């Protein structure tokens, strides 16, 4: 980058006297669209969702209650279930059909949405991995179709229906009137998939050494699709990328498993006396009083014993869950079970004290629990339950008290993690030899926080995952970031949060507000970008107090309801009192990036108009100019007027710094004028420096300007200009600053926290920014002696 010299001080004649910070207005036709209100892009407020971003007076949502009897067949590895489902139509519309989701059909033998790695795109035919071949083979024989039968009303009369791949339509005998309920029954069964061979969010993991499986089961029953006020039925096909859109309801589930299995599920166990031993129940009681360490409910030794001798008898677990949008469970004889009570969280949540009186109701604590086979140790016993408790403690502060009795984290055969109400499945685990790389430790802590955090978004703040991935993933990743900051100092960022500047430099990104299925770079788009954007909003635009209040308002307004993006944007502005349309437009609707350049810094000085001050100053400046080489060489030459002194006249001895009477008179005249206008003439003699800093918004994404000013006397100052500086011209802005000291350097975004994509133009005077390559090279070349004499300890560069 060429160096931009700062011009030597041009003098300005200063007539304006208010030296407040000036913003130079743009010329006509300046670009200002980015500051326009978002109204054109947001849907019109309705009676269900008002302009403040809150549920409207006529807000409605439907409900579905499930009464399920199911068996987990450990021998055949199948699910056999039957249910009575009661659907409540609280919409103002009469519904002639209902849609249910059969997500298992995504794994049907002939499913056209089967994604197989190394299949059609970019395949190197000579190098197919064993796993890919295995998966192809497995798919030849595995048909995950959910076979549904016996769809009848409660009297046993058959209901006509149609299956459309992963969706099932029930044609009701008579349209379901607004406000009415309908109940129906059905049966289903399907083979559970092997997660190691076939992938997916649900399935079993088979452990060869002891011949047992762990089951982490989800999307296992026909579930009602959501009927919404903004889109009617949300029955987009399940293609594996977009997740789920569901209704709240109550569940009663009777789950039959082998009698040596340990089960964790959504909800509260209703029959502990029948399914848990006395010892286990005692330990659970003990765990309820433990907030500082975990308690084993099933110890590693007990799990090991159960592994060795599988039982053939069965038992039935009864769970009840209220106000949940889904139901998942995990079951295995291999499970170790530990638990801890969460500090400060009870079920039901303890209401805030009113008038100094606390009711005497006993509320048991919310329990944080983990289930994992011995292969999860030594990581899981140390971190999992603590991470669950930590998540509830931190998230509750930023949103609302956790309204459920329990939160589970289960070690499953999936890669990464997946969330369900009160239970989540997570994959990271140690290596076979019991050791683990550092990244696995943080992968586990991070994924547990993330998945448990999903209880808040979208399990309770029930946004539509299939339509807008970022509303749950982005908001959850953001609060996860806050929770991780409170886990330990300098917590390392997870893969979802890194590299945002690299992502944002690309020219082929799609806006965050794009439909999930068509986003290629889902991770950066839906997780990282909203996380960073919300953090900027919190730290630099709204400030923590305003942001936290607005965010909490959003979470509490939409608890157990279904929000849309407009509701979020509107609530944040409504509660904070700050116009943020430019922010949403930039970060969520556009593909702009942050790249601000300091174009120029001009140093201006005040003209005092007093000849007694200015004349000597002008002379001193002229004298201070460097001598040219010509003059230097000519200095020794003899001069004529030295030989003929009579050639000297008045001007040879006239001091240019002296003040002429006419100049003095003019100045006194000016002072009189100023006095007449009641202006203090001392202002002309103000000992200050004026700097005009010019900025260009190259990247397009509007941002506040955080500047670090370095002065020649060694001191520094940080100033922050709000993003409104761009409102007259979103491409260029200027700032006039007044300082006592002399300015040496200006840096934009000194802490590199504004996601600026080009660091080089952030400095004035321009500074060469070393590339990472150069830095590495310099460090790598530090110890040539070691490199040459002890090669196994050094990086080995190629010899050219």
């Amino acid at each position, binding site marked *: 980058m060429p160096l931009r010299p700062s011009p030597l001080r041009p003098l300005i004649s200063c007539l304006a006297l208010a030296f407040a910070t000036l913003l130079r207005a743009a010329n006509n036709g300046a670009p200002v669209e980015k500051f326009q209100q978002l109204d054109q892009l947001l849907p019109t407020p309705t009676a269900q969702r008002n302009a403040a971003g809150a549920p409207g007076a006529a807000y409605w949502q439907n409900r579905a209650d499930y009464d399920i009897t199911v068996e987990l067949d450990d021998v055949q590895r199948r699910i056999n279930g039957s249910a009575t489902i009661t659907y409540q139509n609280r919409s103002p519309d009469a519904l002639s059909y209902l849609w249910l989701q059969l997500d298992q059909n995504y794994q049907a033998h002939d499913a056209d949405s089967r994604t197989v790695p190394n299949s059609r795109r*970019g395949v190197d035919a000579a190098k197919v991995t*064993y796993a890919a071949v295995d998966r192809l083979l497995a798919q030849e024989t595995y048909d995950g179709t959910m076979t549904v039968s016996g769809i009848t009303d409660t009297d046993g009369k058959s209901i006509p229906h149609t299956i459309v791949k992963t969706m099932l339509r029930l044609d009701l005998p008579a349209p379901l009137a607004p406000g009415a309920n309908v109940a129906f029954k059905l049966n289903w069964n399907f083979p559970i998939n092997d997660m190691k061979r076939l992938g997916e969010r649900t399935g079993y993991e088979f452990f060869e050494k002891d011949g047992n499986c762990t089951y982490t089961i989800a999307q296992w029953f026909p579930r009602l699709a959501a009927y919404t006020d903004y889109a009617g039925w949300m029955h987009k096909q399940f293609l594996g990328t977009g997740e789920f859109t569901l209704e709240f309801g109550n569940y009663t589930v009777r789950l039959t498993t082998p009698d040596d299995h340990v089960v964790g599920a959504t909800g509260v166990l209703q029959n502990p006396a029948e399914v848990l031993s006395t010892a286990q129940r005692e330990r659970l009681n003990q765990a309820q009083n433990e907030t500082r360490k975990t308690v084993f409910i099933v110890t590693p030794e007990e799990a090991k014993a159960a592994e060795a001798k599988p039982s053939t008898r069965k038992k039935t677990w009864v769970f009840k869950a209220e106000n949940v949008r889904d139901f998942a469970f995990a079951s295995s004889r291999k499970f170790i079970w530990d638990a801890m009570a969460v500090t400060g969280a009870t079920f039901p949540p303890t209401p805030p004290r009113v008038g100094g009186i606390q009711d005497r109701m006993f509320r048991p604590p919310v329990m944080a629990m983990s289930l994992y086979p011995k292969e999860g140790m030594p990581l899981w016993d140390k971190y999992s339950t603590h991470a669950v408790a930590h998540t509830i403690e931190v998230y509750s502060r930023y949103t609302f008290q956790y309204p459920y009795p329990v939160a589970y984290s289960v070690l499953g055969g999936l890669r990464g993690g997946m969330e369900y109400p009160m239970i989540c499945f997570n994959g990271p685990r140690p290596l076979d030899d019991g050791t683990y*790389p550092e990244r696995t430790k943080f992968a586990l802590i991070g994924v547990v926080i993330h998945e448990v955090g999903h209880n808040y978004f979208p399990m309770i703040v029930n946004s539509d995952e299939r339509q807008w991935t970022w509303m749950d993933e982005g908001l959850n990743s953001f609060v996860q970031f806050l929770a991780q900051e409170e886990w330990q100092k300098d917590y*390392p960022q997870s893969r979802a949060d890194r590299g945002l500047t690299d992502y944002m430099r690309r020219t082929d990104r799609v806006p965050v507000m794009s439909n999930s299925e068509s986003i290629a770079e889902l991770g950066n788009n839906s997780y990282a970008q909203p996380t960073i954007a919300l953090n900027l909003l919190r730290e630099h635009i709204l400030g923590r107090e305003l942001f936290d209040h607005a965010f909490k308002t959003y979470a509490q307004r939409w608890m157990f309801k279904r929000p849309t993006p407009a509701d979020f944007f509107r609530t944040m502005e409504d509660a904070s009192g700050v116009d943020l349309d430019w922010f949403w437009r930039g970060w969520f609707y556009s593909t702009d990036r942050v790249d601000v350049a300091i174009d120029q810094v001009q140093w201006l000085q005040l003209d005092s108009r007093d000849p007694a001050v200015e004349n000597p100053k002008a002379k001193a400046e002229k004298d201070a100019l460097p001598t040219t080489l010509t003059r230097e060489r000519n200095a020794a030459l003899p001069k004529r007027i030295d030989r003929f002194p009579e050639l000297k006249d008045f001007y040879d001895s006239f001091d240019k710094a002296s003040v002429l009477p006419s100049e003095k008179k003019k100045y006194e005249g000016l002072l009189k004028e100023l006095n007449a206008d009641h202006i203090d003439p001392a202002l002309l003699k103000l000992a200050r420096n004026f700097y005009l800093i010019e900025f260009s918004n190259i990247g397009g994404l509007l941002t506040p300007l955080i500047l670090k000013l370095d002065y020649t006397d060694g001191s520094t100052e940080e100033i922050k200009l709000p993003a409104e500086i761009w409102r007259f011209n979103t491409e260029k802005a200027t700032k006039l600053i007044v300082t006592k000291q002399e300015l040496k350097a200006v840096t934009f975004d000194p802490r590199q926290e504004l996601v600026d994509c080009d660091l080089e133009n952030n400095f004035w005077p321009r500074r060469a920014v070393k*590339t990472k390559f150069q830095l590495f090279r310099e460090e790598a070349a530090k110890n040539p002696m070691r490199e040459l004499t002890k090669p196994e300890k050094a990086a080995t560069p190629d010899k050219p």
Partner: protein
Amino acid sequence: MLFRALIAVCLAGFFVSGTHAHPIHTSFAEADYNSATKKLEVTLRVFADDFENALGQLAGAKISLEKSPRAEIDALTRAYLVSHFIVKTRGGSLAPQHWTGRELKDADNELWLYFEVELPTGVDGIRVDYLVLKSLHADQLNSLRVRDGSRSLTLIFPPAQGERTVRFPP
């Protein structure tokens, strides 16, 4: 006519699935052209566990970045980079690659690879095939930023993309 291709089955011990909450499969490379040495200085950032799997696939056995012998990892990395980050000059000839080193930031799951590519005729018009990790993940998305002085260009290599040419915008 039956066409039988020989498939080399690698015993990599990992499983390749696209389950759960959207794993990210991406890598970033920054390439700065050093006109003094006439070399392209490349910094390639990749997720450590993904790269481990790729090396394992190449080696035919499980590789651990922390535990496997250093020399073996170096050799495998060099071989992998040469075959998966292919640079051709404008004339079409293959540009030689020289490996400088690597840095592992394990807590962040990041591996930084540093290498140079010889380009005596300059960086305009070169063709890059950025195949790193493509054979492992069907949704691998790589991006490359090339800089020459003040000129800069970002090239994306989404799943179906082949070779791309470096042509700076005017």
